[in-house]
């Protein structure tokens, strides 16, 4: 079992618990123990894109420092990687390192943090750089390998028609993305390893509408319609995602999308980790389908496919 620091983030602790519950169990099955950061804060969700906005870069950097501290305190040995499930967390943590390549900015941030030494719970040492953020998808591809995944499959997802959906932040910009921004394959490869039938989704890299879900549901409803209707036409029975915000928009906003265009059929949306937990034959509690978090219940489909 290799121990790697794990940054949960707010979403997988609340509205996306089904993601982390299934993901942690799947990782364990694959020989990776995810060790939660003893202390962490919201990553900031979106990195500031302004060159001069240092304050809004602090949040992810604090978390990178906590990984550094885990090494110093012996919680992990010489382990500078940190794994996340949420695409937004991954994106923000990864971007923080790119941002800090600028030595002047790194120094400014560390000077700001210097004074915290005086306070309880403050950061005791600045960021030294070198902590590497990994999306769990990358871990599966590069550390675990698809063959190993195939080996763990107890209940192949035969005949389950699955359309992958990536969204934006694990793919773009290129220097942050984990796969080809125009033609990614990680999700497809994993689904194939699980024995599922992969359905072509022309919209898999299109935006879900993201944070507009707070004040412009109309925009999100239109995008949700587009992002679902094409894979459904191609025969998809379930959409598979990797980001809690995409998932919310694709799943919960079906209500609004169906108000906009009545021809949209309901379709369940699940995290790839949930399908992995099912295919690995893990206990039902690790599937995350009974927590009341799905808007469209995936259970009828799973039952119809003899998977539940």
């Amino acid at each position: 079992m290799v121990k790697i620091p794990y940054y949960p983030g707010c979403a997988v602790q609340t509205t996306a618990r089904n993601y982390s519950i299934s993901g942690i169990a799947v990782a364990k099955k694959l020989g990776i123990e995810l060790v939660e950061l003893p202390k962490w804060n919201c990553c900031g969700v979106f990195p500031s894109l302004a060159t001069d906005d240092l304050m809004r870069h602090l949040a992810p950097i604090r978390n990178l420092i906590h990984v550094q501290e885990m090494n110093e305190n012996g919680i992990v040995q010489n382990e500078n990687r940190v794994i996340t499930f949420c695409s937004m967390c991954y994106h923000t943590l990864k971007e923080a390192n790119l941002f800090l390549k600028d030595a002047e900015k790194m120094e400014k941030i560390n000077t700001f943090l210097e004074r915290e030494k005086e306070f309880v719970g403050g950061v005791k040492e600045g960021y030294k750089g070198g902590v590497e953020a990994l999306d769990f998808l990358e871990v599966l591809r590069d550390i675990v390998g698809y063959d190993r995944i195939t080996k763990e499959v107890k209940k192949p997802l035969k005949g389950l028609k699955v359309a992958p959906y990536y969204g934006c932040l694990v793919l773009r910009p290129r220097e942050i993305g984990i796969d080809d921004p125009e033609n990614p394959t990680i999700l497809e490869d994993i689904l194939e390893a699980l024995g599922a039938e992969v359905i072509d989704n022309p919209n898999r890299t299109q935006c879900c509408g993201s944070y507009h879900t707070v004040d412009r549901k109309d925009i999100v409803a239109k995008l949700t319609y587009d992002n679902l209707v094409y894979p459904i036409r191609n025969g998809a029975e379930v959409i598979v995602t990797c980001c809690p915000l995409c998932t919310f928009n694709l799943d919960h906003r079906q209500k609004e999308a169906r108000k906009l265009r009545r021809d949209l059929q309901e379709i369940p949306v699940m995290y790839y980790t949930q399908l992995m937990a099912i295919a690995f034959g893990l206990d039902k509690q690790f599937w995350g389908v009974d927590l009341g978090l799905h808007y469209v219940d995936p259970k009828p489909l799973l039952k119809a496919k003899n998977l539940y």
Partner: protein
Amino acid sequence: MTEAEREIKEKVRIYIMGREYKVPAGLTIMKAMEYAGYRFIRSSGCRGGFCGACATIYRVKGDYKLRMALACQETVEDGMYISQIPFTPAEKPIYNLEELSPSANVFLEYYPEIAKCVSCNTCTKACPQDLEVMDYVQAALRGDFQEVASLSFDCIACGLCATRCPAEIVPYNIALLARRLYGKYVMPKAKHVEERIKEIESGKFNEEIQKLMDTGLRDLKEIYEKREIEPE
């Protein structure tokens, strides 16, 4: 001369809202202000570090750092520029605790602005109670009310964190909601309180209460002064 006597003999120079005063060293800010002739109508309450009324900000000559303190607790230093913050304007959403449950989004529902926290930690630096304020705001964001309650247990609602937060969050009200939820859902019920309430309701003390109500003010004062007090 003992250390304490010397401290009182020695004077330090402080500036109260810009005006210079010489006050004995070793006094608290509150006492020093009274020494200088101020009379507290606001910004003072318990004088013991519990009520949070005496929020104060200051800088010390030659240092850029803005510091926060409770006037009744902090001793004056030479060269302090002092100002008080008698009141922190803050919105207090109304909720009925009976109808609330500690759901993941309960804090976001009443205080959506916590999602604006940038993790700058300014609030922690401001807190005179040495609380990890940022950490409890962050725990609220992920719905962890038990963590919020335990990290904020010593909060006295002085308001200093709220005056400093760049995201305009009012941490102490969030903390209050967390502790209320904690009290309702986690803390074990105190049996003896429930029993006593039953006794009161059943009229066990009616006679004694009536007797007190019929007593005149002077006698009442005397009874009060002679009352039994638990040893400290």
